[in-house]
């Protein structure tokens, strides 16, 4: 690149669709080598002062000048300002041409902070029935499961990707393996080998392969439930499995090859195959498996170590006194940094358990329930759900609200609510965004943080 050249030579003149722009190579360097502007400074191409630049050294680009102005401004300041007369979609298309779509995305919204979230927009879908799950993609897009269909949105939130389905069986869970691929778990269809667990490509919508469960060298059909992934070690994917005979437990596969690498069989009296939530704990190198009321009449939470095939930590409400019964646990999540597992009951009371000792009791935090008295759902309640961001902020959904908890004592610091669409049946955090899926209307909300202030 000719960056070190004198000031005059640093200047670059463009003619974009008839309009003249002048800028510097330093500004264009912000776009990076892997953009349209990268080769302009490559000595192989010799573009700056050859036949390319006709009439006073202009460099012609046959594109929309209005959009180029926005892109150029983005490269100059790092700020994205889209004038009202330019549709976002058009701008994205142009940014994609120049190879600076990532710049646009990272300028569009700021780094995630539960207490700075602003409502951005709602997206309505067409699928009938209740939403099952919503999963944020690493790049800011998301996947929404409705019945037997999964709709995939890119970060621009116009549904450009084909919808996914696994033999048209009811979808139980979805998980992003990487920004390009996602796994879908579904119910089995008796005797047909349909359903189970499949890996899909986001862009093409094609089923790449199915993860299969093999027992005694025989492939068995199964219903796949909750999903989790582990990048360290070895790119694993975990799923709770229910089969015909004794294939109850947790299956483990390689994300890339789809080969089954392990299976943790359910021990008698301990429900693993029905699990609602799986979570990989990287530091401890084990998997949290939670099977919760009302899928089973009792709640089971355990940590599995696959290296020793051991249940290294466990808790269950079997045999707990009736007074505790009303506080039946509805969701649980491990917070490795705090050495704790956080659980929530149907009144959105938070409770904590110590991960370091087995057989401890739940310490319920004495939170006022007054705030909950506002608006109770008339029919069909949605159960509370939990999510964690970077180990520090805890999120809990209840009815049409999402509460944010912070600090060592998990104090409630913010509440997110939008009065349309009814109760929140699921929500997810990822790609610096929060997605909340409503149960009554087929609609989900997007919450994001504004970019950092100008000064």
């Amino acid at each position: 690149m000719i960056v070190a050249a004198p000031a005059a030579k640093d200047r670059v003149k463009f003619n974009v669709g008839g309009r003249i722009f002048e800028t510097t190579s330093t500004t264009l360097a912000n776009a990076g080598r892997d953009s349209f502007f990268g080769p302009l400074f490559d000595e192989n191409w010799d573009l700056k002062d050859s036949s390319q630049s006709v009439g006073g050294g202009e460099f012609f680009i046959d594109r929309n000048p209005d959009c180029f102005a926005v892109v150029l401004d983005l490269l100059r300041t790092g700020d994205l300002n889209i004038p009202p007369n330019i549709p976002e979609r058009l701008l994205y298309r142009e940014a994609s041409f120049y190879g600076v779509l990532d710049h646009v995305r990272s300028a569009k919204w700021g780094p995630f902070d539960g207490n700075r979230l602003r409502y951005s927009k709602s997206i309505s879908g067409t699928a009938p029935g209740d939403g099952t799950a919503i999963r944020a993609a690493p790049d800011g897009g998301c996947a929404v499961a409705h019945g037997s269909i999964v709709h995939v949105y890119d970060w621009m939130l116009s549904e450009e990707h084909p919808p996914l389905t696994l033999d048209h069986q009811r979808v139980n869970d979805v998980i992003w393996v990487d920004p390009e691929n996602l796994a879908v778990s579904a119910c089995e269809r008796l005797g047909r080998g349909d359903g189970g667990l499949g890996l899909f490509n986001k862009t093409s919508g094609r089923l790449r392969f199915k993860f299969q469960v093999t027992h005694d060298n025989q492939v068995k059909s199964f219903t796949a439930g909750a999903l989790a992934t582990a990048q360290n070690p070895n790119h694993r994917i975990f799923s709770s499995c229910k089969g015909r005979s004794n294939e109850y437990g947790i299956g483990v596969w390689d994300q890339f090859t789809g080969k089954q690498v392990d299976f943790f069989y359910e021990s008698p009296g301990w429900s693993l195959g029905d699990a609602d939530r799986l979570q990989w704990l990287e530091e401890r190198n084990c998997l949290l498996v939670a099977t919760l009321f009302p899928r089973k009449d009792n709640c089971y939470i355990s940590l599995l170590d696959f290296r020793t095939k051991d249940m290294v930590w466990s808790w269950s409400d079997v045999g707990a006194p009736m007074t505790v019964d009303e506080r039946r646990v509805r969701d649980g999540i491990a917070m490795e940094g705090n050495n704790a597992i956080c659980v929530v009951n149907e009144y959105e009371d938070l409770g904590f358990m110590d991960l370091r000792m087995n057989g401890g009791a739940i310490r319920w935090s004495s939170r006022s329930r007054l705030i909950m008295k506002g608006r109770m759902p008339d029919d069909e309640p949605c159960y509370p759900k939990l999510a964690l961001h970077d180990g520090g902020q805890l999120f809990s959904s209840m009815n049409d609200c999402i509460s944010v908890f912070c600090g060592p004592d998990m104090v409630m610091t913010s509440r997110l609510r939008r009065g349309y669409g009814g109760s929140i049946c699921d929500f997810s955090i990822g790609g610096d965004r929060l997605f909340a899926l409503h149960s009554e209307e087929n609609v989900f909300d997007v919450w994001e943080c504004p970019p950092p202030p100008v000064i």
Partner: protein
Amino acid sequence: MSNQKKRNFQIEAFKHRVVVDPKYADKTWKVLEHAIHEIYNHNASGLSFEELYRNAYNMVLHKFGEKLYSGLVSTMTSHLKEISKSIEAAQGESFLEELNRKWNDHNKALQMIRDILMYMDRTYIPSNHKTPVHELGLNLWRDNIIHSSKIQSRLLNTLLELVHRERTGEVIDRGLMRNIIKMLMDLGSAVYQEDFEKHFLEVSAEFYKVESQKFIECCDCGEYLKKAEKRLNEEIERVTHYLDAKSEIKITSVVEKEMIANHMPRLVHMENSGLVNMLLDDKYEDLGRMYNLFRRVPNGLLTIREVMTSHLRETGKQLVTDPERLKDPVEFVQRLLDEKDKYDSIINKAFSNDKTFQNALTNSFEYFINLNARSPEFISLFVDDKLRKGLKGVSEEDVEIILDKVMMLFRYLQEKDVFEKYYKQHLAKRLLSGKTVSDDAERSLIVKLKTECGYQFTSKLEGMFTDMKTSQDTMQGFYASHPELGEGPTLVVQVLTTGSWPTQPSSTCNLPSEMSALCEKFRSYYLGTHTGRRLSWQTNMGNADMKATFGKGQKHELNVSTYQMCVLMLFNNAERLSYKEIEQATEIPAPELKRCLQSMACVKGKNVLRKEPMSKDIGEEDAFFVNDKFSSKFYKVKIGTVVAQKESEPEKQETRQRVEEDRKPQIEAALVRIMKSRRVLDHNNLISEVTKQLQQRFLPNPTEIKKRIESLIERDFLERDNVDRKLYRYLA
């Protein structure tokens, strides 16, 4: 071109529509294909990047990504096939240069092609699971050039040939080598390993196998090691110059295996230059080299250590069992110390103070020092010699160093109690004769023994020092209370506590009347100041200074033992005395008397007496006279007693017996201690525990332990279990 496409995509984005111009894709591709040709032909300056980029973009946008991609593959492949031909055509030396030049060209072209197809690389390729353009370019290069049948083996042979030439001393173009190897690594570590490294290692192994065989036939061990080290360093250097850093460990392990591991026993045992010779000649540099090289191979250090240990044990065994050496204990110990110093410095200078070697050294010394039962005695004698005279004029630090070395030998001893016995005897002699050179050195050694073996070990030795001090005070008190004693002989008494000092068979003699009167005075003074004590005279341990005038008026001061004094005093009143008369008058035990007469009558220069008949030995019929012709150039004459410095055989037996006797209560005490805490224990465990407890001081003999157990059973400390006779019970 593509004027008609200006606003097309706005409509296209929402509806899938057919492309207007059915030949659109073919046309666009032709433009791009042409550009790729131009790029490969170094003719890119006429190309419009903007147009090419836009064309490729449009092709992907209009769903012709597949056509674009497959077109790229076939175009690039055909170019590479041509390149392959031109490389094949290169003759001899220029082959690698041509390959390198084409590789650089290809990389440049690849970069430019990727620039044009950037949009495809970013959008079409990930979603369709194709290989990205850059990687594709490398793969095609690998398949069409590196793996082409006419290049693959030629490339490998050329590279190996160059390495071989460099090994045999030629200068090669390392820059070119580096570029070609870098190319292989850029194509993936699998390519580098399969197409070069694997063969390189095989050829190297063969090369070093032959070379090491050649070297070992004609070099001595030191030279061989030098060559091996040089080769090893060359290979390491080669890796840094033009191979993958990961190869270092592989090639060095090849060299290590071929040059060192395979020849280890032969090298170590090489005649006249092997390890033993290096040790004998203190060849630190060679030893260090051997250590550093052998350390790299499995069991290398073990081999060195084993040879060193067995050599050390062998020489050590000779050292301590050679009867010639046993004549002089000081020399004996000095040799041990020298040996230790020698190996300490080898381990320090050549074996980088390796702990395992230090342990081997310690074990060897422990092994052979204890082969000779007299080692404890000799070590004590060595200390005695040093403390008597050896340390005169030596600085304090040097004294400490010598004492520390002695302590180190002491640590190797199994029978520390035997050493203690001897040490006590020797210390007693030193103290009583006032021969000790330095009180500080004595005390320093005792402190060292104390830290090594505990208070119990040294309490009696310390008692001896206290006695010496108290005696001085007592004598001052005695003379202060008897002012009239200024005239006449002076008496110096050392009052020794019984038990603290080595017990001597008390053989009294008749003191001359002058002396016995003085002694009586002292006795009554001492018993007057201390009640409840008993004094007995140890005349065999005393000495005296006498003034004598000989026949021609020569005056001398004679330093003699108490016995000798008694004999000489007799001659104040007699000219001639027979042996019988002397024996009668003094009542000195016969062996002592003989020794004492021998020292005065038969030693040249010290012969204050004359004997008839003249002979070397003292007979019962001999007669003695004052030797009037006695002369000496010194005024003071010290007449030593003929005492064997080393113990004679019966004395040795006696000491041994006393040691054994002393051990009995210690073994019993240990037995009772153990049984008291264990209550019940079987025979074997009891023996092993006792041995463990006592090995700080000595190695108890199992049969002796058994005897002690029997004795304890007799005295109702222990009993045998009724059912299991091997089990003992403690009786409280």
